[in-house]
């Protein structure tokens, strides 16, 4: 049980895997670059489809993995490949020799300001899904004026399925997130008109379709099929959104008090950096390349290196947790094989 297991990333995948490994009798090491655990989920308010509070999920994960060795504010400085193990040098000066490396480096949120035409960071009333979750959590955002929320728009696929944003893949969770956030906003501002501008709606998960029907029927959220082409700012500071209503084949224009951009998932540059240090391959979508995208998604082509969660591509929370559990089991069996 002396085996060192290094988990790179203290998001939900890292924490879940650590918790499972602790249960299996190991004492994994979690390396987290930021000052808190829980990754992106820790910044979120509620999770679809049951609106369970994200902080409950994260705090239970943190509690279950508390016994692990956790290094916060720590990055990996370099990785040396030894004969059958890795020497990992951390930014805090500690070096670890390990035969097992679990990459749970996750994703980065697409930088919405790269879609210049949407004016994120330029127009006053444009925010991202993450900003909105922040507002749900803290109630603090000057873009949301409680007394003047008559019309709100959500733009789906910001930086997803977009060659121009150099991110051609679907980020998977934004459709349902947009619907979730639209419902939450509508609950807070029942008189506001809420629009969702979408290209496709991918309601693939459990209860997602019910969620969608709720949004339509019970909350009257208007779905407009068409990608927003450009956003302008009005003289009174509201944003004017232009799109094509592709179902009627006509351009459509609407003035909104708030525009929420559903920034997608892109590969985490830090994940790529560590991958390069450990000579791990990168897939064509920029995420880490698994041994096999069907059968061995949690295994890298290199022995002893495992993946879990969104470092291999966009994932939902339950998928990430499932992968983390699978990876823990795989690591356990791998160590047994070594002995």
């Amino acid at each position, binding site marked *: 049980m002396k085996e060192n297991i290094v988990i790179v990333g203290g998001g939900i995948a890292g924490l879940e895997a650590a918790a499972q490994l602790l249960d299996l009798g190991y004492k994994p090491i979690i390396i987290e670059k930021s000052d808190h655990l829980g990754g992106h989920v820790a910044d979120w308010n509620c999770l679809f489809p049951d609106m369970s509070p994200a902080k409950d999920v994260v705090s239970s994960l943190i509690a279950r993995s508390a016994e692990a060795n956790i290094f916060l504010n720590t990055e990996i400085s370099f990785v040396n490949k030894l004969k059958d193990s890795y020497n990992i040098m951390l930014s805090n000066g500690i070096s670890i020799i390990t035969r097992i490396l679990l990459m749970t480096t996750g994703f980065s949120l697409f930088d919405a300001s790269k879609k210049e035409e949407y004016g994120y960071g330029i127009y006053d009333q444009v925010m991202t899904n993450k900003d909105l979750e922040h507002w749900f959590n803290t109630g603090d955002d000057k873009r949301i004026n409680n007394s003047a929320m008559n019309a709100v728009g959500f733009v789906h696929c910001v930086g997803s399925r977009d060659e121009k944003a150099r991110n051609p893949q679907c980020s998977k969770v934004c459709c349902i997130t947009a619907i979730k956030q639209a419902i939450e906003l509508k609950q807070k501002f029942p008189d506001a008109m809420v629009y969702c501008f979408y290209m496709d709606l991918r309601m693939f998960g459990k209860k997602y379709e019910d969620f969608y029907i709720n949004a*339509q029927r019970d909350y009257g959220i208007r779905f407009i099929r068409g990608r927003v082409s450009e956003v302008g700012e009005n003289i009174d500071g509201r944003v004017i959104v232009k799109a094509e209503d592709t179902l*009627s084949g006509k351009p459509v224009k609407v003035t909104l008090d708030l525009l929420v951009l559903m920034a997608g998932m892109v590969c985490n540059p830090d994940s790529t950096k560590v991958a390069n240090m450990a000579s791990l391959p990168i897939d064509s979508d920029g995420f880490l390349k698994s041994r096999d995208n069907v059968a061995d998604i949690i295994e890298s082509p290199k022995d002893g290196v495992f993946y879990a969660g969104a470092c291999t591509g966009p994932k939902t929370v339950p998928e990430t947790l499932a992968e983390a559990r699978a990876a823990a089991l795989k690591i356990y069996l791998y160590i047994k094989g070594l002995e």
Partner: protein
Amino acid sequence: MDFGFRISPSSAINLDKVNLEKFEELHRIEPDVYKCMACGSCSSTCPANRYSGMSIRKVILALQRGKEKEAVAMMRNCMLCGKCTMVCPRGINTRHLILSICRIYEEDVK
């Protein structure tokens, strides 16, 4: 002065200016009207489609976009046969919806 050309009205739909009063009235009677996800099953099965271009999915959309005249024109040849209701994957009672539209909207709108 006549230049032989004029400013042509914009074909764009300005959602700020669409008057949805009647649609809201329709929605009160037919809450399911919001459930349409524009799959087009109704239009493809509609016997009136080839005569007046009837498509209840387009009608629902056009009414929300303030294109009442277009919607009413499409409905001209609806036979109320109920095929659209039969095929609707979202279970919208399209027949009653059609009758409600005939009651709320008017034919000679601008």
